[in-house]
């Protein structure tokens, strides 16, 4: 009898959950990851995971979680699957609890919950301020158990290069590169689940980890896997600026009572502790009295930009505002926020328990991603599934804080189950695929490497990458202006031309990170055009996508999903309706009661 196999690419929360589901069902899994899976970017998630458990007697329900998520996402998400996710969230918390996650507890030994942005309920379970780390480790441990018992084989230190797609347009495996030996090899499988995370590197500096380049998504896109809502990029309101990365200061700081403010007087000379309350401008609290510091991220980010660039009230004239937790008792800070306060202290040398932190918005998350259907994480290419941040399904035009971890685990579990069902029902699997199909993909990829290694040129890939990042951050994040987007797109095309002339400063065949980076950069350039063109076309403002020239949401023309396709080696945009069958769109306002 045929023994099907599933490949999973990506070992963060979504990939690990998919692995667990597939392994449990008895289907062997090959798990690929650039880094040891325990070092995946999910480890950086801080504040918590949402589930309407209603453990504070507030009358919270999964329906309210569903409504907050759809409303927070400005009605761009297809609704039925979001509803299923919110309904599943409490049982996801139970599962993580059973896996031994060291969640914070109430005196009775129950899970504690805190508030997060875009909701009025205490709905966020947490483990200090390192919830992502704790969740990732729990799933990592379960996968290690499956590995020890022979159901999972890990390929850590491999990068994904391409899917192997046969002449019938069905995925039959993948092509990867061993990042030590630089060997290019194909791996047959009956289905491949992609859980390859974020795309922060396209913006140069972001809150994302180094491996979050979007390279895998882009490679798939160039093989005909559609990409949806690419223009929706979340800029987190509170990050610590840095030259190598923007270090996140979790929304949980505000969930625990942290306040955002600037001195009312732009020429203020006193230190923050010497400024009396009356001279402080708590602008989020004044502008949004109902939600205060816990407005959704797109709203808070635009408010901070307004304070800095229009009101000219940035700290010392710089692009920064205060995030203040210094009024919260030290013991509370220790129990509930220690992880992030340590980051601030370690990297800035200032104790945030004493002094307000200086923060500014930073690129954080992509709501857009690989197109999947509204039922089971299936892409438009049979045999290819996607889950986690790399797909677009759950967050509409803006993601609510603490919804990413739940969407990773829900989507990952669903993708695992769907792939199992798919491979069991396949009439012919990878074993019936001609060897030539694999060999031609391997050759194509090997030739790319050979060309990069041997070509003489004048361009350095790191320089092109820096320029791309600066360009994207300036024109394709918080405020989008059509003529700037057009110019940005033209500039990316010149970067693509320059890319053809890159010269690798390392031409060896052992652990050559320059070669791998060059390959990823090519894919980043393509995906950056998908994002920019999507933003240029969408003449409205919705969630994280804001155009001063078109300041309002335009449901009549733009309540639709952008679906980018790769046609004749170029980006082509198509649109499809959003499933709004459960909640009728209404105006989104956080300054007043709904």
């Amino acid at each position, binding site marked *: 009898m045929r023994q099907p196999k599933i490949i999973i690419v990506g070992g963060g929360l979504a990939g690990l959950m998919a692995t667990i589901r597939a392994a449990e069902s008895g289907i062997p899994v090959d798990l690929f990851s650039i880094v040891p899976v325990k*070092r995946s*970017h999910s480890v950086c998630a801080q504040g918590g995971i949402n589930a309407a458990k209603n453990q504070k007697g507030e009358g919270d329900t999964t329906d309210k979680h569903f409504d907050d998520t759809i409303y927070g996402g400005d009605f761009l998400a297809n609704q039925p699957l979001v509803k299923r996710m919110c309904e599943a969230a409490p049982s996801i918390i139970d*599962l993580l609890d*059973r896996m*031994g996650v060291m969640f914070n507890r109430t005196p009775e030994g129950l899970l504690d919950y805190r508030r997060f942005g875009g909701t009025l309920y205490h709905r966020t379970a947490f483990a200090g301020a390192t919830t992502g780390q704790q969740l990732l480790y729990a799933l990592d441990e*379960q996968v*290690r158990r499956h590995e020890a018992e022979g159901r999972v084989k890990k390929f850590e230190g491999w990068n994904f290069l391409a899917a192997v797609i046969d002449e019938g347009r069905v995925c039959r495996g993948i092509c990867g590169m061993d990042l030590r030996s630089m060997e290019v090899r194909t791996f047959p499988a009956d289905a491949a689940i992609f859980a390859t995370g974020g795309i922060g590197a396209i913006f140069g500096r972001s809150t994302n980890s180094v491996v979050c380049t979007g390279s895998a998504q882009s490679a798939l896109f160039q093989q005909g896997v559609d990409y949806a809502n690419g223009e929706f990029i979340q800029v987190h309101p509170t990050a610590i600026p840095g030259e*190598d990365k923007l270090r996140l200061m979790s929304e949980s700081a505000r969930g625990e009572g942290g306040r955002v403010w600037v001195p009312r007087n732009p020429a203020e000379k006193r230190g923050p502790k010497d400024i009396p309350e009356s001279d402080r401008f708590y602008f989020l609290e004044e502008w949004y009295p109902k939600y205060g510091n816990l407005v959704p991220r797109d709203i808070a980010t635009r408010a901070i930009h307004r304070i800095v660039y229009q009101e000219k009230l940035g700290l010392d004239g710089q692009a920064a505002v205060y995030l203040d937790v210094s009024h919260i008792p030290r013991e509370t800070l220790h129990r509930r926020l220690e992880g992030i306060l340590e980051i601030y202290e370690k990297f800035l040398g200032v104790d945030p328990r004493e002094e307000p932190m200086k923060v500014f918005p930073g690129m954080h998350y992509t709501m857009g991603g690989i197109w999947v259907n509204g039922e089971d994480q299936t892409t438009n290419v049979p045999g290819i599934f996607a889950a986690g941040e790399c797909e677009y399904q759950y967050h509409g035009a803006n993601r609510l804080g603490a919804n990413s971890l739940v969407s990773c685990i829900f989507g990952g579990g669903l993708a695992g189950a769907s792939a199992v069902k798919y491979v069991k029902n396949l009439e012919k699997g990878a074993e019936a695929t001609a060897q030539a199909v694999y060999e031609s993909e391997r050759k194509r990829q090997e030739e790319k490497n050979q060309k990069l290694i041997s070509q003489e040129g004048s361009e350095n890939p790191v320089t092109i990458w*820096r320029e791309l990042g600066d360009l994207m951050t300036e024109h394709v994040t918080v405020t989008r202006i059509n003529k700037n987007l057009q110019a940005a797109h033209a500039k990316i095309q010149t970067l693509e031309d320059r890319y053809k002339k890159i010269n690798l400063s390392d031409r060896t065949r052992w652990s050559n990170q320059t070669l791998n980076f060059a390959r990823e950069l090519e894919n980043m350039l393509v995906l950056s055009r998908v994002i920019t063109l999507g933003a240029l076309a969408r003449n409205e403002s919705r969630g994280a996508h804001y155009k001063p020239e078109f300041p309002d949401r335009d449901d009549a023309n733009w309540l639709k999903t952008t679906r980018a396709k790769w046609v004749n080696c170029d980006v082509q945009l198509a649109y499809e309706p959003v499933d709004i069958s459960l909640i009728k769109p209404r105006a989104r306002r956080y300054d007043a009661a709904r």
Partner: protein
Amino acid sequence: MAETKKVLIKIKRQAGPQEPSRWEEFSLNWRPSMNVIICLRDIAENPVTSSGKKTTPITYDSNCLEEICGSCAMLINDKARMACSALVDHLDQPIRIEPLTKFPLVRDLSVDRQFMFDSLKRVKAWIPIDGSYDLGEGPRVSPQVQAKGYPLSSCITCGNCLEVCPQVNEHNQFVGAAIISQVRLFNIHPTGAMNKRERLEALMGPGGVQECANAQNCVKACPKNIPLTESIAEVNRDAWKQALLGWLLG
């Protein structure tokens, strides 16, 4: 015009496990808030030594850059630490950077820490749940147990505690403090405690907890301030108790 302030950095290079090692020195333009990762990126953009010789970019491991993924451990001025949180302004120059020495070298500053992940398998560092389907809530856990367990579960598997341990050497297979501390974590969890015995047994053979010679370097090298020596003491006590009990009961 004043000369730009420079950062001097010396890096131990090695093209592969079988290749000879050599030192290279680089002179970089100083900027505020530089860390070692930024230095390595500067070199990648312009791989030229301070004597003007063209070279290759440095191979190194890194990912989160906020000291939580555990990737970028290396020896910086002879100290095992994370490169992302090693701020240039706090380091004596020339900054000397070498790979960790207790793990097989891959290339330059990149090493293979698979031994640690294999050790986690050896001690069964997980809660053996029945399945991922919905089986209701987990056990209640007191805030006191959580307060004890949470710091233990913040281990980032960086390997610094093994690097500084004199007992981790070519003559034995000591699993090291990080792994022992994980055994303690799973043994204090209400469900994990059901398999406490299995984990302790896994730590009693060669390379187990008895190899610790109490140098106490581990706890000082841990970037996450995990009470590693406490973990070793507690697990050691439990292991002896179990061995004695086994002997008494025949």
